[in-house]
């Protein structure tokens, strides 16, 4: 419950504050958000499976964000930033979908 509250508060704060994103961060934020979403869905699935571990969640969350940003950064340096970030989004999207399928099976039993 508190976790959900945290999410809601974060969205509201983001909408209210509307901070200027530093130019350096601009390209990494969307990918980082998608990576974090993947981690959140994974965590939710783990919780429904009963194998949720906060330490694992924290590490996977941060790792996802950092790795995603790193891949984009590397892609930018190599000159294939657009393609690579597309690839990252695709992979994360697939993972999110498979996690969502597992969650759905738990919640709706279908």
């Amino acid at each position, binding site marked *: 419950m508190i976790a959900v509250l945290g999410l809601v508060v974060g969205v509201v704060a983001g909408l209210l504050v509307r901070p200027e994103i530093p130019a350096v961060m601009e390209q990494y934020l969307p990918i980082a958000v998608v990576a974090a979403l993947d981690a959140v869905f994974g965590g939710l699935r783990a919780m429904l499976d*009963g194998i949720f571990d906060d330490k694992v*969640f924290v590490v996977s969350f941060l790792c996802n964000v950092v790795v995603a940003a790193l891949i984009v950064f590397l892609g930018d340096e190599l000159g294939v930033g657009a393609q690579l970030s597309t690839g990252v989004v695709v992979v994360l999207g697939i993972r999110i979908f498979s996690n969502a399928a597992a969650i759905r099976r738990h919640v709706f039993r279908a």
Partner: protein
Amino acid sequence: MSDEQERPEHRLRRELPAEVPASEPEYGGAPEPKESAEPQVTGRQRLWAGLWPPRLSRAQLIVAVLLFGLGFGLAVQVASNSDSGNVLRGARQEDLVRILDELDDRTQRLEDEKQGLEKQREELQSSSDQAAEARKQTEEKERQLGILAGTVAAQGPGITMTIEDPKGAVKADMLLNAIQELRAAGAEAIQVDQVRVVASSYLSDTDKGVTIDGNKINTPYRFKVIGKPQDLEPALNIPGGVVQTLEKEQATVTVDRADKIVVDALRQAKQPDYARSSAR
């Protein structure tokens, strides 16, 4: 798949260990002890247990912090993305260069198109100007010719000449002399009584009096003449001129200058039967 097949049995058994949720708060811990409790607790129950009642555990707090960060980033990204003005902010350098090139191309194309259209507009305008100018000149010419031909009314400075002829001594040739004299002095439009005098006008004596173009005119003969008054009046009054000749015949002649003479007697335009314009 295997879950679904097992579920019916679980559901029946689920009722028995009702006290299991008591140990539930630590389901977030190591997976090892969970395996034994797994059959009794479904995912849905775990979800509800996690949502309500709210518990202030370390796991919940940490997850809340991370989710706060996620929500914040999500909202910021969505907000900055939905700002239409900032569409280009996140774009890469090569994209920006491409967009710039495209814009340049487009500008060039539009510029060309604009030039073409402007040229066309200029042409149309000048041609319509020319047409208007030609029409104006034609109208002007028509008016001038109309005054000469007597098909339009005319007004302007000039003189009036009244010839009183109680004895009936004034003949057509004398009036013709007067008209010739006026023409020579620069008269531009002449009207005698209600008859317009034009190039083809003729005067003749009949037993009833003088006629112009077959229309009888009565004494006193009133001439309305448009022209330069300073030229017309002396032309009539010169010694041995029209006035003296007429007065010799006992006629009374009065000549008045006027700033505005209106010659409004008209004559039908006549299409020539044989003569055709040879100009052009």
